[in-house]
C-alpha cells in the first residue's frame, strides 16, 4: 500500500512541481467545511441574540473572527507539505504539553474547571490544541512502526497519549480526554496494533470505566451527568429534556430562523456550545438538521477517503486521527443533545461557538486537505 518511504517521496516530488498540489485539493471537503462553518455562524447568532431587542451581536462577531482565524490556520496547514510538518510533530506535542501544564497554574477557573487562559477579550483552551498535537505525535510514531506494532510499541503510543490526558484530568476536562482516548484507539487500530492486544486494551478500558464510575474519582455531579441519559428523571437530565423538547419542537420543517421558541427564548442551556445542534434542529427542522448531519457525514467520508488515498502511512494516520476527532465529537455532542449519550461538554466541531475548537477543527481539515492534495506527490 505504501511502497515509498516518506523522505524519498518528499524530496523527489515536491521539488518537481510545487504548484501541482492545488489542482488536487478536495472540493467536497472544502465545500462541506465552508457550509458547516457558515451554518455554525448563523446558528450561534440565533442561539445568542436573545428574543427581544436589543439583540446581542457579540457572539456573532466573535465566531466570524474565529472562522477567519481558523481559515488562516487551515490555509497554512494545507499549504506547507505535511511531510515537513512531520518533522515538527514532537515540537507541537511538547509545546502543547507545556501549555497544558501552564494552564493548570495560570489558567482561569470557570465552572470548577481550570481549562482556559484568559487574554483579555479572548480565551484560549489549550486542551483543544492537544487533540491535534496528539494526532501528530501518534502519526509520527505509528508511521515509523509501518504497521508492525508489538506490545512494547503499543505501550509507547499509549504512554504518549497518557501524558496530556493525565494533565487534562487535572483541570478536569473529561470531555477532551474522551476525545483523546478515541483518537488514540482509532490510530493504533489502523496503525497496526495486534488484535490480541486490542482485546486486552478493550477489557482494561471497560474495567476502567466501571471502576471510575463506581469510585470517588469523579465528583457526584460528574457521575450524575454521565448517567443522566439512562435515567431521565434526575436533576442533571434537565438540560437533556429541554434539548429534546426543542429538537422535537422543530418537527419536519422547523420553526424558522429566530422563530424557535425554545432556542430563542433561551430555554436550552449552553445552546451556543454544547447544544448548538439543538438550536439548528429546532429552527431548521428534520430537513435542515438532516442537511447538517449529511454535511458532517460527507465531511467524514471525505476524510476517510483521504486516509485511504494517502500516499504514505503518516498521511493515512493523520486522517484517521482527524476522522476519529470529528466522528466522536459529532456522535457525542449530537447524541447528547438527542438524549442517547452521556452529558459531557464536547463542542460540535465547526458549529459550536468557541475560538480554540473552531481553529483546531479548521486546522485539522487543513491537514486532511494537505494529505489529499499531495496524494500523487
Amino acid at each position, binding site marked *: 500500500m505504501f511502497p515509498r518511504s516518506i523522505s524519498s517521496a518528499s524530496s523527489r516530488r515536491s521539488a518537481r512541481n510545487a504548484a501541482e498540489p492545488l489542482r488536487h485539493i478536495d472540493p467536497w471537503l472544502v465545500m462541506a467545511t465552508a457550509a458547516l462553518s457558515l451554518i455554525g455562524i448563523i446558528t450561534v447568532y440565533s442561539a445568542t441574540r436573545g428574543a427581544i431587542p436589543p439583540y446581542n451581536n457579540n457572539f456573532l462577531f466573535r465566531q466570524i473572527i474565529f472562522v477567519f482565524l481558523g481559515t488562516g490556520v487551515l490555509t497554512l496547514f494545507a499549504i506547507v507539505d505535511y511531510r515537513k510538518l512531520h518533522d515538527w510533530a514532537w515540537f507541537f506535542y511538547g509545546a502543547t504539553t507545556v501549555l497544558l501544564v501552564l494552564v493548570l497554574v495560570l489558567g482561569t477557573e470557570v465552572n470548577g474547571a481550570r481549562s482556559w487562559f484568559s487574554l483579555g477579550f479572548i480565551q484560549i483552551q489549550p486542551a483543544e490544541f492537544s487533540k491535534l498535537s496528539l494526532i501528530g505525535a501518534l502519526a509520527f510514531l505509528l508511521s515509523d512502526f509501518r504497521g508492525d506494532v508489538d506490545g512494547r510499541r503499543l505501550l509507547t503510543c499509549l504512554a504518549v497519549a497518557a501524558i496530556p490526558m493525565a494533565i487534562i484530568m487535572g483541570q478536569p476536562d473529561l470531555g477532551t480526554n474522551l476525545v483523546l482516548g478515541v483518537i488514540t484507539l482509532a490510530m493504533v487500530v489502523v496503525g497496526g496494533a495486534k488484535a490480541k492486544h486490542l482485546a486486552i486494551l478493550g477489557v482494561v478500558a471497560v474495567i476502567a470505566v466501571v471502576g471510575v464510575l463506581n469510585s470517588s474519582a469523579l465528583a457526584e455531579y460528574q457521575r450524575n451527568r454521565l448517567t443522566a441519559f439512562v435515567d431521565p428523571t434526575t436533576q442533571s437530565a434537565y438540560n437533556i429534556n429541554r434539548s429534546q423538547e426543542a429538537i422535537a419542537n422543530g418537527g419536519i420543517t422547523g420553526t424558522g430562523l429566530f422563530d424557535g421558541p425554545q432556542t430563542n427564548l433561551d430555554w436550552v442551556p449552553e445552546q451556543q456550545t454544547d447544544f448548538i445542534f439543538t438550536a439548528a434542529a429546532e429552527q431548521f427542522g428534520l430537513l435542515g438538521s438532516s442537511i447538517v448531519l449529511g454535511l458532517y457525514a460527507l465531511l*467524514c467520508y471525505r476524510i476517510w477517503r483521504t486516509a485511504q488515498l494517502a500516499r504514505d502511512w503518516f498521511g493515512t494516520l493523520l486522517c484517521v486521527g482527524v476522522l476519529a476527532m470529528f466522528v466522536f465529537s459529532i456522535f457525542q455532542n449530537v447524541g447528547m443533545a438527542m438524549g*442517547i449519550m452521556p452529558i459531557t461538554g464536547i463542542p460540535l466541531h465547526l458549529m459550536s461557538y468557541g475560538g480554540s475548537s473552531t481553529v483546531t477543527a479548521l486546522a485539522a481539515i487543513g491537514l486532511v486537505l494537505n494529505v489529499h492534495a499531495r496524494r500523487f506527490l
Partner: protein
Amino acid sequence: MDTDSPRLRLSILFVVVAACFVVLFGRLWYLQVMAAPALAESAEQTRIQEVFIEAPRGRIIDVKGRVIVDNRTSLIVTIDRKKFKSDFKSSKQDELLAKLADMLTANGAPTKVSTLKARLDDQRYSDFQQVPVATDVTDEVIHTIAERNDEFPTMSYERKTVRVYPYGAAAGNILGYTGRITAELKDKLVTANDPDGIPKTYQINSTIGLAGIEKQYEQYLRGTPGVERIEFDSKGRRVRVAEYQEPKAGSDVQLHIDMDVQLRAEQALSERLAVLRNTPQRDGAIRRAPAGSMVALDPQTGGVIALATYPTYDPREFINGLSQERYDQLQNVNGVSALIDRSISGAYAPGSTFKLVTAVAAMNNGLITRVDSLYDPGFYEVGNPPQRFTNAGEQVNGMVDVIRGLSISSDVFFYWLGARMDGTTLIQDTAASFGFDKATGIDLPNESPGYVLTPAEKRELVRKYPESYQDGNWYTGDNVQLAIGQNVIVVTPLQLARAYAAFANGGTLYKPHVAWRILRPDTDLNQPIRSSDVLETFQPEVVGTISMSPETRDAIAAGLAGATVGAGTAASAFGGWDMNAFPVAGKTGTAQVVNRADTSLFGAWAPFTNPRIAIAAVMEESGFGAEAAGAAVRRTLEVVANQRLTDAADAPTVGNKD
C-alpha cells in the same frame, strides 16, 4: 483473512463511522417525527404560562325579570407580598406603603398605612398570590400604578367582577353567597361546559357558589374563564401573549321567586316577630319570638314564589370573606343561628295544621262522611285507666262535624278520629301521600326531611337510641296525638306549604322548584324574553298524587275556608279582608314544644278556587297560630291580592283560639 491489513482496518473504521451516523439519523427521526407531538407539548408547558381571567358570573333574576344579583367591576390594588418582603428592608417597606396610602388618599380613598399593613398580612392569601390591599379604587389610582411602576414596585392591580345585590339583603337565604374556592372543593368538582361547549374550568383563585342558588346552579352561573397564554424566556421575562381568549359571562338563572312577595314575606315575618317580642298576648305572656319562616308556592307548578326566613344574613357581607367574629355573631342572633334557612331546614311539629291530613285519611277510609258529627265536651279520654286529652283551655264546642271541626279547630273531634285509626297506619300513609315522609327535593342545599313515625319506626328508634327513647310501644295516645300533629311528627315549613298546595290543586304533589329557567348570558331584560334566549326550562315535576273523592275534598276545603271567616280560628288575622275578592282557605296551628312557648303555624291557599298561591308560615315561640303566623301570612297575601284594608298587626283578636 489478514486482520492486520490497513485496508481492512480502514474498512472497519468506515463501518463504525457509518453506524454512528445511522444511529444519529434514526434518533433524529424519532425525536422530530415520531415523538414530536408529545415532546413539543411539554416544550410548550416549559415556556408558556397560562393566566386565567375570571369571568363574570351569570345574573340571578326574579320571575318578573328583575335582577336580584348582578355584577360590577371593582378595581383592586394588589401587592406581590413575597417579593415586597424579600426585596425591601422594613424601613423601605413602610416608606412605600406610606407613598401608596398618600396616593390613595389624594385620589379620594382616605387610607392609613396601618390599614394597608394589616391587609398585606392577611393570612387568607398565600405567598404566591397577589394580596389585595385596596378595593374599589378609581381609574386614576390604577393609571398611576401602571405608569409609575418604579415608584410603586411590586404593586399591581386587578379588575375583578364582584356581586351586587340591588335588593340588598333580601332573599339572602335563597341566593346564598360566593367565595374563594378551596383546594379540597376544587378536587371534587365536576367541570361544566358553557353553551358553546367550552369547559368552565376552575383555578386556584376561582370564585364559587358556596350556598343557596349560587351553589345549586354553579354549573350555569359560572362564567367561562378567559385565558392568556404568555410566553416567557428562561429568565422569566414576558416575551409576548401567544393566545388570548376572552372571558365569557355565565348564564343567567331566572327564578320563580317574585321579589314583591319575597320582600313582603320577609318584612311580615320580622315585623310580626318584633311585635310579639314587645306586646303581651291574650294570655298575658310576652313571647321570645326569636325566629320564623314562610314559604309561598305556586300550587299549579311547584314553583317557589317566596322563601323567607328570620333571622337571616346579608350576602354582601360574604363578598370579601367573613371574619370569624362576624361569623360567630351570625351563629347567635337572639339565641338562634342566622345561617340556617328555617323555611327548608327548620323542623317543627305541625300541630293543628296537620288536621288536614287526618281529615283526608278519615274520609278516604270511610270513617266519617261530611255529615257525621261528634259531641265535643272539651276533652277526650282513651285507655284504661283513662288518659284525658283536652281542647286548649278545655273549650266546649258542642256538636262538631268535619267542616266545623276544621274551621274552629276542635281537637276532640280529631282525637276521636285518631283513636279510631289506632292499630293502622292510615294517617302515616296519607301523610306520605302529602309528601311528609321525605325531603321535597327542592333545588336548594341543606333541606331537612322531617319525619312521621309509624309504630314500627318508633320501636326501631328505641332499639337504636336507647338513651334518648325509652318506651318503644305504640299507644292509642300516640295515634291521638298524631291526629293533631303532635309528638311523633316533625315537618319543615316547605313540606307544610307543599301539602296545602297539593290539596289546593286537587291532589297533585309537585317537587318545589326555585329556579324557573336558564337564560343566555347577558340576556336583554328590557325586552320581552325571546325563546331563543332561553337555554333550558325546568318543567314542573309531579312526584305523587293524593287520592281523594270530590266529596272529601269539597268538605275539607269548606272547613278550611271557614277558618278565615266568622268563628274560624284565623278570622282574626283576616279582619277587614275582602273574602269575596280574594277568598283565602287555611288552617292555624299552635304546636306545643317541650320546655318552650308554642310554635305558631298557618297553612293556606288562595284564591279558594283556581288557587295561585299556597303559603305556610311557622314562627318559633310565638304563641297562637292566628296571632303570629296567620297575621304574617295575611300581610304577605296583601301583595298577591293587591289588598290592604287594615293592618293585620292591628287586627282585633277575637274568636276561637288555634
